[in-house]
Every structure is written in C-alpha cells, then in structure tokens.
C-alpha cells in the first residue's frame, strides 16, 4: 500500500521524509495512514463514478445534438421516472460509503486514544514564541530535567506529552509519529505518542503563532530504550563549571535569559543551554548545530530569524568567539 502510494510521486525522493504523514514511524501515525488509505480508495471510486457519469452525460449530449425536441413532454416523463428510481440508489450508495468512512474514522480515533488508560512516560512540552520548552521527569530526584527544541522518544514505549502554551496558541505536530494537537493557553492537552521506527524526525508548530511561526521546528529522535535512558541521564547531569573567558562573558551577557545548570546561569526566559551542543539544531530547527552557526546566531539573530526574541548582543569578536567555543563544549 505504501509503495503504491509512494509510486505516485515520481518527482521527489519519495513522499516519505522526516516530516511526512505518508511515512508513519509511530502507532498513531500508522493508524491515521491506514484511515487515509481507505479514504483514498473510496474517494477514488467515487470520483471515477462521477467523472464517468459526467462523461456519459456529455457523450449523450454529443450523440443527440442534432435531435430536435428530444425532451418533449412524454419522453421526459418516462426518462424522469427511470431516473427517479436511480435516485434512492444513489442516495443509498452515498450513505453507505459515508457510513463506512465514519465507522473507520471512529475506530481510528479510538486507536489514537487507546493508550490513555495505561500509565506512560510524561513529558511536558510548552510552546513559546518561537521555541519549544521540553521537560522530562527526573526519575531519580523527581524534579524536572529541562531541554529545548529537541525531543527524544524511547522506541516502542508510549510517551504522554503534556502540551501547554506560555503565550499564544501553538500546535505540536510530528507527522511521522502522530497527528497534531494544539497547545492552548488555559488548557492542558495530552497527546500520546508511541514511536516505532528508529531515527530522526522533524516536527513543526502547526498553528499560526506570530512572526516566526515558520521557524518553530522541533527535532525528534526515536532511539532504543537503553539509549534513551543514557541520553536522559546525560541531560540530567549539570554542566561542569567552567572558568574561561567564554563562561565569564556568558554569565554577564546571556545568563539573564538562559540557564546552564551547574554553571550558575539560571535565566528561564530563553531555552535551557546546559547541553546545547549535543542538540542537532539551533534556533528551533532553523540552523544545524555547528560551532560556526552558534557564533553566527549569537552575532546576528535578527538576520537569520527576523523578529526573534533573541536580542542582538553587542560582543567584541574575541568575546563572541569565546562564548561560541564555550557553548560548543556543552555536550
């Protein structure tokens, strides 16, 4: 089924991809893809029938184009009587088709929420303009381990995302893994995701949230449960206190908004940077994580992501270099 669908898009390197609903890598996305496939079949049949009927109608029009007054009173009456018998058939077919689809949709919906009854690993995801704050429960101390813009999921285990918003409405969407769910100020929405296929995926905010809605993306890694636990342990560990120029500049210029646990920086306004260099991307998916991009982002945030809340910090080239070097060590 998937292969047949993928064959439809010859121009591209597959309808699959890291942000594709057509390439399910999780239970929820798979249930939705099956529903979609069923709907495609039904829609295909319906469209062929309608197009066929229209073509037949036009063929008749062409065939009888010379006839005069074919539609005289008596003949129309007979034709109409026959057509009137077809009408309930058409209605019945439509109702039948829709009933099939409504039932399938109902069951797919149940499948999406089947895991709600059982306990699951809770991860708090909060949408800010224009980045994601992600908090894991620390299994050791029961505090929160905070990271940003990158979500790691253990393969095969259901994770319950507790979705909230700090300012305006956002929406959490990782198409390969599950459908989307809005993050609404004043509500807490729960989204269960069960990832099955290892690898990296991309998610994106799917509710217009302001100037840089286009650059509010999320990296998602699905890894084995062991690798996930190792990653979480690494995230939990504080950064080693550093004593270089970079750390000193960071403390003055960046610590008001950013936190580096263990190094005395505790700002909550911006993303947590304790293990920033271990992430795959920067600025909510806008740039790849490299030392050069780190420095570029710090130097010219407005040029890269115009309208971003990250201010333009005036640093001397030496200071900028030092901070970028320091941040690159925070793995």
């Amino acid at each position, binding site marked *: 089924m998937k292969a047949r669908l993928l064959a439809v898009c010859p121009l591209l390197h597959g309808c699959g991809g890291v942000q594709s609903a057509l390439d399910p890598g999780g239970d929820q996305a798979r249930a939705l893809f099956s529903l979609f496939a069923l709907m495609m079949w039904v829609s295909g049949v319906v469209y062929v029938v309608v197009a066929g009927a229209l073509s037949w109608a036009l063929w008749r029009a062409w065939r009888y184009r010379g006839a005069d007054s074919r539609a005289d009173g008596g003949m129309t009456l007979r034709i109409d009587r026959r057509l009137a018998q*077809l009408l309930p058939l058409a209605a019945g077919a*439509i109702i039948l088709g829709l009933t099939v689809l409504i039932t399938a*949709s109902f069951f797919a919906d149940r499948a999406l929420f089947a895991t709600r009854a059982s306990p699951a690993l809770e991860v708090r995801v909060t949408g800010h303009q224009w980045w994601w704050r992600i908090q894991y429960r620390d299994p050791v101390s029961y505090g929160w381990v905070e990271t940003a813009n990158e979500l790691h999921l253990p393969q095969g285990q259901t994770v319950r995302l507790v979705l909230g918003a700090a300012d305006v409405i956002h929406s959490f969407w990782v198409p390969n893994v599950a459908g989307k769910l809005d993050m609404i100020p004043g509500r807490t929405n729960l989204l269960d995701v069960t990832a099955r296929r290892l690898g990296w995926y991309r998610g994106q905010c799917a*509710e217009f949230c302001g100037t840089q809605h286009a650059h509010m993306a999320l990296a998602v890694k699905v890894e084995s449960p062991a690798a996930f636990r190792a990653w979480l342990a690494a995230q939990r560990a504080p950064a080693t206190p550093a004593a270089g120029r970079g750390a000193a500049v960071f403390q003055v210029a960046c610590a008001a908004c950013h936190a580096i646990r263990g190094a005395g920086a505790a700002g909550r306004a911006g993303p947590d940077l304790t293990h920033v260099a271990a992430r795959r991307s920067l600025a909510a998916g806008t740039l790849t994580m490299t030392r050069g991009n780190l420095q570029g982002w710090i130097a010219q945030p407005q040029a890269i992501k*115009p309208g971003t809340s990250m201010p333009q910090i005036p640093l001397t080239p030496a200071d900028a270099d030092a901070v970028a070097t320091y941040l690159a060590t925070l793995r």
Partner: protein
Amino acid sequence: MTPDLDRRDRLALAWRDPPGWWGFLTTVDHKRIAARYIVTAVLLLFLAGLLALDMRWQLSWAENTRMGPQLYNESFSLHGSTMLFLVSVPAMEAMALWLVPLMLGQRNMAFPRLGAFSYWLYLGGVLTLWVAHALDVTPDLGWFEYPPLSGPTYAPGHRADIWAQMITFTEVAALCASVNVVATILKMRPPGMTLARMPVFLWAMLVASLMTILSMPAIMLVTSMLIADRLVSTHFFAPAAHGDVLLFQHLFWFFGHPEVYIIFIPATGFVSSIVETFARRRLFGHHVLVLAILAIGCLAFGLWVHHMFAVGLPRLGNDFYTAASMAIAVPAGLQIFCWIATIATGRTWLATPMLWVLGFVATFVLGGLSGVMTASAALDLQLTDSYFVVAHFHYVLVGGAMFPLFGAFCYWYPKATGRLMSERWGRVAFALIVGGFNLGFAPMHLLGLMGMPRRVYTYPAGMGWDALNQVATLGSAIAVAGGLVFVANALLSYSRGAPAGANPWGAPTLEWAGDSPSPPWNLAYTPVVDSLTPLWDSPVLRVMDGVALERREVVVTSVVDAAPLYRQKSASPSIWPFVAALAVTAMFLGSIFTPWAIAAGALPIAAALTGWFWPQRERATTGPLRVRS
C-alpha cells in the same frame, strides 16, 4: 406582451435616476447597485490574486528571503480576509440583488434604499482594510485572528482592530442585503409563482440569505468582544482571568462554517439555472434540489467544530461532528446526480456557461472528497493546518463557488449589457483558469501530507517540497492569466460583442422576458406564472396590469401562494443611504480608537435615519388589479 411606447415613456419617467454624480450617489436601482458590487468584487479578486501570486513566488524556493515574515503574514491575512469577506459573499449578494427582482418580474427589491446602503457600507469595509494596507497598517494575524495572539498583549496597536471592524462593516452590509433578499423572495413573487413554482435559483438565494441572518450575528459578536478585550480591557479571552480562548473559536466558527455554505449555496442556484437552460429541458429532480439546499442550509449550522478538531475537545463530541460533516455530502451528492441526469437527458449545448458547470463538477467533487477526509476527526489531526486543507478549501471555494460564478457571469452578461461575450475567448479563459487552478492546487494535497504547514513564509531546503511548490506557482500564474483573459473578454464585449436579443440562450425563467439590457423598470407588465419554466410553457406570457406607471410601485403577494395582496410604494432615489453609511462608517472607524465613538457616533446615525424614514405623504391609488392576456 409588447408594451407600447407611451407605456415605456411613462415607466422611464417614473423609474429614471437623476443624472451625473448625484444620480450615482442616490440611485436605488438594484441593477446599478449590483453592478457596483460586482466591479468592486472583481477588482478585489485581482488584488487578492496578486497577493497570492506574490506568496506563491516566495514559496517557490526553499529558504527564499525575498519576502520577510512580516510582509508574508500581512499578505496571507489580507488575501484570506479579502477573498472571504470582501469578494465571495458580496459577489453572491450582488448576483441576488441583481437577479431576484428580474426573476420575479418585479421592478425593484423590497427595500431599495437598504440595498444602496448595504453597498456603501461594504465599500466602507473595503476601504477600511485596503487603505490601511496602503498606509502599511495591514492586519497580519491571519483571516481569523485567534486570541491570545490577537489580544492586547501580543498584537499591540490597531492592526487587529482594523480587521475586526472591517468584519463589522461587511457583516452589517451582508445582513442588510440578506434581509432585502428574503423579504423580496417571500413577499414579492409574481402572481402564480407559488413556492412550488419558484426556480431553484431563488430557493438558493433565500436559504443563503436566511443563513446569513442567522450566522452573521455570531461573528459580529465575537469581533466586538475582541475589540472590547483590546480597547477597554475586558477578559473575554484571557484564560488567567476566567476567560476562555476557545470561546472565540466556537463563536467564530459558528459563523465561519455557515459562511462557506453561504458562498456555496448561491453557486448551486447558478448551476441549476445554467444546466436547465443549456440542457434545454426542465431540471430533473426539482424537489430533490430544493430539499438538498434546505438540508445543506440546516446541516451547515451543526458542523463548526470540524474546524477545531486539533483543539483537544472531548472525543465523542468530535465523532458527532465527523458524522455531521460527512452527512452533508449526501444532499450535495444528490444535487450532482440531478444535474448530471439533466445534462444526460437533455439536448445539451456546450456554450461557455455550460463549460463552467462542467469545470465546477470536476473540481468541486474533488474538493468535496478531500473535505470528507478532513471531516474525519482523527485524520484531520494530520491534515488540518497543513497545505492539504489549503488545497481542500480552494477546491471547494474556487471550484464550487468561483467557477459557477464565472459561468453565471457569462450566462447573464447578455441580459445585463445587451451583448454576448466572445465564445472563443470564453473557452480560452475557461481552459486557462480551470487547467491552471488544478495544476496549481492539486500538488498542495501532497505537500500537506508531506508535512508542509500553513502560513509559513519559507521552508528549509532538503524537505522535498521545492518541486511541488514550483508546480503550484506555475498553475496559479496560468489561472491568473486566464482571469485576465476573462475580464478582457467582458470589457471588450461590452462595446464590441454581438448584440443579444431578449433571450439569446432560450432560457425559461422570467428575467429573460424583458429587453436586454434590462431597462430600469425591468418588465413593463407584471407577469403571471403557472409553471416552473414560464417562457417555455407559454408562447405568450400572461400578464397582470394595474401597477402604477407614473410613480414607483411594486406588487406584494402572499408568502406561499403568491396571491396578489396590495401595491406597495417603492422608494425613489435618495441620498440618505449614502449619508447613513457615512455616519455608520464614522462610528465604526472611530470605535477602533476609542469606545466613546459609539456614543458620539450614534447622533449622526440617528440624524441620518431620521432623514431616511421621514414620512412621505401617501398618494391616492389608481385602481384595482386586473388580469390581461
């Protein structure tokens, strides 16, 4: 019945407009007002289309930096707001305003000055939005501006208020137009046109207008609540102060969903008229078509939550709305059955209006099928807020409303202007528009499934979206080129088109009984109707006489059986609609800046309404109505 010259002269004297600018400002001729609506709407269609081309060009390459986020956000907000509030609904209202009296054999609408007022107010809304755009104060939060993004904290200044007040303008204008249409259709039908003998077009306009009256208050309320939050610090949409962000969404979509059917249902009226004429047989399934329109009108009010499937509402409720949203495919599907049956069993003539109907069926059914997909609460979690739903709503709005509108334009153009549009260029325009549209929007289904969200000014390289976006841009450009050909055809045919007689298409309904172009008084006699297709069934039309010729008068008939009741004075040209609209405009614009404008603005409005309703001395009646054949 050929009216004699003396009769025509007396009618011309009673129904003429004052000359020049004064006549322009004071006219209550429904045809002139409708023409204004259409010209304004077509102009805005092109402006919004240019915005769309700009956006498409921006999205044709990954990480394109030509348009910054601010400009792009303004563009899609303006494009959506213009197309939905300032083009689609007003265009449908305009067709009703123009055709309803003609199809009823009446000389004007029930409330002529209200029609003029509704246009001026609509123009006020247009200017509010587009002058703001010219002054670089464009609203930039989308066409539905959800709070808290549109609240006082995250949308400082007045851009969001300008959007909200534009809505107030257009909704009051729509309410006025709808009340006018409903009153005319229910109380001013020609004698003998019982509800059972009323053409499908009039049923469509009746239902669409009733839907407008029932749904518009919701959006006026919600935009007023938003302005109140922003201007006087109420807490309607402040969750931390016991408000609710979802209240906005529910109220907005309670209007928003019927709105798209308000746009679609008149299109079904156009299609029914065109199919009947060009299949050259009476419509098959008249009762089914009427019942389908009524069913769609009712069902449309029970679907709005399908715009909120990703919000996290209780699942069982969502399943109900899935079923209801899919159920609306039943009446729509039966309508398609009836039209195709009519085409198949008639002697179908594929003139340009009929081509547009074919384009409509081919395109709208696709949109309906993608709509069935988005109707599923579960699948919608992947599809909503992505390019899939962008493709879906363009297919149903363009295919389901614009194509019939273009067909209706070609169909009734001879009646309005006395000329025929060029068939050859009409076919060229049709091919370019329908082909270009499908080429442009079909790839968007795939883009949405491949994860491209809506309202993004750019996307990263390497997603595999580039090629599809470029195809979409090419298709859109072709469609716009076709639109230019269409408009050029209309403009050039005005002076160079072949002269059309009274009934060039051989159509059956009453609007084709009089001259082309219709004189200001429409028909010289009041027709008496005894079938659904009067011009086909009676070689000579039966008429009634007795309505005054020296002054403006119309016949009022009963609601169900259209028995003549009395003659009603019809309003003469008046400056008061324009003055009242100016007063209302001043109040609406003022209330963007201060709540006191509502109090201060009430006084000029009261003065204008006093002038409007100043009592006129009644004249004596001339005599009883009598039948003449």
